[in-house]
């Protein structure tokens, strides 16, 4: 059943929530708005019913296996949400005095410390609001570092071709030039190329390790040596931290600055697109440049570190201190894991990925790097099936939905044709993984026996396959009531 738009429920002059007063504001007519504000006018029941029904049209971790590579879709414990929503935490004004915030500040301080331990960094700032903003903070710190040394010419950021799009986009936002390095056949970085480009213009390199290919970069120490020798710094994109938690430290690998996606490794919810948190960690030499505010402990009292105290800080990245409620959820999760729990994260994330990879390979699928150990994710290439049957990675993705599985990441990283990037995470059971393998095998069989049917998928979703070209060619981005005439959106 199609759910209408909330605006289509509307009748004039009605509202769900009953507000307190009908008074008129104490303002001159000339400043007031005179047009009709197009908000829904539905009853509370209609609103509740509408959004409850819409929610049911989503796949989610709470309802489906969701092996979306690079996204670490692990279980989000309900208690993390419950505790972040304690009334005192929800009611705390961000500019409230620290006297009314010691409980909250202590929690943030301890979170900073736990993240330092987990990454081998000397200091952490929690303020970035997602991975990409963490990257921004990191590259801005790298630039500030070079500037502080009068080394202004360094404006190149090196990124592997397998990098996530946020890496090059961040470099540009920071005013840097992007230098792309290819990946070798074996999945590691082309180190000769790196040697060739590293030099006096090098501000730094952005790497994720394991890479977005699901492979641990084995030459990491050599890479670090090359970059450092050239005078550059190493940035660690922590999106894949789930693979190495408790096994190795970015700090030990030679990284100078790192962001962590707490909404991946530390299980804060993705919320259908956000919010996240991209906390950044740095080694000693970048400490003066950390974005403010962060929490410090002075004589047993927790306070905010300010720009006055850290005049070299790159400054603020949000009006207050980032996604505070997300940070609370990450803290609760980390405390519930404790040391052994954290170490197990990578054990089982990696076990699940390798098991799933082996099962798929044994079921006849082509794995992109069969000679390599998978990290927490791995790539299947459907190139041959696509060639032989016309059924593509996208078709597989859609067909999986009909089997009750969310699709893996498709067509990323860009260098493997017809690829699926598959990340099961540690919180899925063997039962889920086996079910996924069975579905993949059935789709493959159908691709050979009846490819047209596969290309029709999905059949069980609220809509059939959507026309993306139409969407982009005739953008309809905002609803217009029939009366208000032609769409403008």
């Amino acid at each position, binding site marked *: 059943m199609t759910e209408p738009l909330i605006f289509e429920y509307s009748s004039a002059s009605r509202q769900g*929530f009953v507000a307190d007063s009908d008074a008129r504001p104490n*303002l001159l007519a000339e400043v007031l708005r005179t047009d009709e504000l197009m*908000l829904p006018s539905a009853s509370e029941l209609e609103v509740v019913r509408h959004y409850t029904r819409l929610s*049911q*049209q*989503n796949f989610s971790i*709470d309802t489906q296996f*969701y092996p979306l590579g690079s996204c670490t879709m692990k*279980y*989000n414990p309900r208690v993390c949400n419950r*505790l972040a929503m304690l*009334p*005192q935490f929800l*009611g*705390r004004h961000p500019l*409230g*005095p620290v006297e*009314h915030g010691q409980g*909250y500040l202590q929690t943030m301080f301890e979170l900073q410390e736990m993240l330092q331990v*987990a990454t081998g960094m000397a200091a952490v700032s929690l303020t970035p*609001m997602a*991975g990409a903003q963490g*990257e921004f903070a990191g590259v*801005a710190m790298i630039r500030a570092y070079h500037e502080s040394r009068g080394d202004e010419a360094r404006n190149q950021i090196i990124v592997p071709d397998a990098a*996530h799009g946020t890496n090059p986009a961040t470099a*540009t936002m920071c*005013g*840097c030039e*992007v230098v792309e390095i290819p990946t070798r056949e074996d999945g590691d970085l082309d180190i000769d190329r790196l040697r060739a480009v590293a030099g006096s213009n090098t501000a730094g390199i952005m790497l994720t390790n394991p890479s977005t290919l699901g492979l641990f970069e084995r030459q990491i120490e050599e890479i670090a040596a090359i970059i450092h020798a050239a005078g550059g710094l190493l940035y660690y994109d922590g999106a894949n931290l789930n693979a190495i938690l408790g*096994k190795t430290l970015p700090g030990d690998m030679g990284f100078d600055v790192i962001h962590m*996606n707490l909404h991946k490794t530390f299980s804060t919810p993705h*919320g*259908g*697109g*956000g*919010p996240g948190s991209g906390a950044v960690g740095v080694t000693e030499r970048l400490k003066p440049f950390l974005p403010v505010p962060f929490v410090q402990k002075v004589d047993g009292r927790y306070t905010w570190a300010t720009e006055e105290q850290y005049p070299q800080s790159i*400054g*603020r*990245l949000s*009006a*207050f201190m*980032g*996604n505070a409620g997300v940070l609370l959820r990450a803290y*609760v999760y980390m405390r*519930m894991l404790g*040391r052994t*729990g954290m170490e197990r994260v*990578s054990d089982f994330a990696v076990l699940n990925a390798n098991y799933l990879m082996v099962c798929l390979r044994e079921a006849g699928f082509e794995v992109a790097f069969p000679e*390599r150990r998978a990290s927490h994710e791995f790539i299947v290439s459907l190139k041959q099936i696509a060639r032989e049957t016309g059924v593509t990675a996208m078709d597989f*993705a859609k067909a999986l939905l009909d089997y009750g599985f969310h699709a893996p990441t498709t067509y990323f990283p860009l260098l493997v044709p017809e690829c699926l990037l598959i990340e099961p995470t540690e919180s899925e*059971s*063997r039962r889920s993984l086996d079910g996924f393998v069975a579905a993949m095998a059935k789709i493959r069989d159908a691709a050979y026996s009846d490819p047209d049917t596969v290309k029709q998928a999905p059949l069980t*979703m*609220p809509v059939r396959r959507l*026309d993306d070209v139409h969407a*982009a060619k005739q953008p*309809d*981005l*905002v*609803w217009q009531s029939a009366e208000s005439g032609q769409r403008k959106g």
Partner: protein
Amino acid sequence: MPFVPHTESDISTMLSRVGVAALGELFDEIPAGLRIKGLEGIGPALSEAEITQLMQMRARHDGEPLCFIGAGAYDHYVPAAVWDIATRGEFYSAYTPYQAEASQGTLQVIYEFQTMLASLTGLEVSNASLYDGATAFAEACLMAVRANRKNRSRNILVPRTLSPAYREVARVMLKGQRIELVELPMRDGISDLKTLDNLSAGDFAAVAIQNPNFLGSLDHVDVLTDWAHSGGALVIGVANPMALALLKPPGQWGAAGADIACGEGQPMGIPMSSGGPYFGFLVCRQAVIRQMPGRIVGRTVDLEGKPGFTLTLQAREQHIRRSRATSNICTNQGLVATAATIYMSLLGAPGLRSVATSCNANTSALVEALIALPGVTRSFAAPFFHEAVLAFDRPVAGVLDALSSNGILGGYDLSADYPELGNALLVCATEMRSAADISAYADTAREILGAAA
């Protein structure tokens, strides 16, 4: 094992299928010298009951003081339905809606969100949210510089009355691209129009206008908009969506309206929560949509012609355009935007108007009550929405401390951001502050001021 479902037998079956003897072997590609023994320094696990007790204790310790601070985050009532629905697992634990057919819930919500924001701001197209109001302002500046084809200026004219935090975040975010913020001075709490005479709009990619501004006052939005447009500068309107329930929206400022509107979405059903997660909104004219950063949802049709929703215009985004994207933003504030959509649906236009009106009335009452005290006066005569500046005869910090020990957060001390205003305090009373709350503030302040005098 918390959050890991494997049994001993699962583990041994899986290890042998993978062909390794122990879990440790799975990490054999990590150079031996980099392997660590584990996370010494992380404490033992707490049970759910234990962490619950710990967090409840900390929360109780922070208490629930009576809040008269605004300054960018506002204590509005949030109906129970808002977060009850937003935190349903299907919204809460979904990813970005890349598989549109399995994400119609999230996508339709965001399409509705975009429609509501367009209507509130009086503009044409909205994105699906940015991180917060401050970053939305910075992105609006970047967008304006890219979009302004008339002049090639990399300067933005920004009033001193615009939120100091927004100006600071924009400075940080624009620095790498060598875009400068030029300050428009203030007078009597609003932009000093006289200073425009010494400026040429053509020197700026855009002129920013915040209304109500950081000091709570309503500014000369029409004059400023027309001045900017006359010189070929774009106009970025910064607005509080709660105020837009009452005030002329950016899209209607001056003769042509602002080109871009942005701001902090927190007043739309989002708890103050120590500052986040909130969401930034960014809305613009159709003409500049290709310069818009962030995700956008569009309505389209499926292969049977049935309407459906999908992410669209992705060629602007980093995962397609990479280093030439309009922004690096990827994860945004989807769940918070979902909550805001539910909030706006529940209240509707009349509900929102009524809350906004109460805020206006309560702040007026608070101002009246406080200026009745000896040594307290209003700093400015300009009309205000729900915040106002009061001048004290002594440093505000001490007064705030004394109020705070009485469980009252008396406002935001302006002395660091605006030393030129002297002992100035920015106060706010939302619809949540009852007449009794306001009297409690005034009575306590009277005692404090009397005692210290």
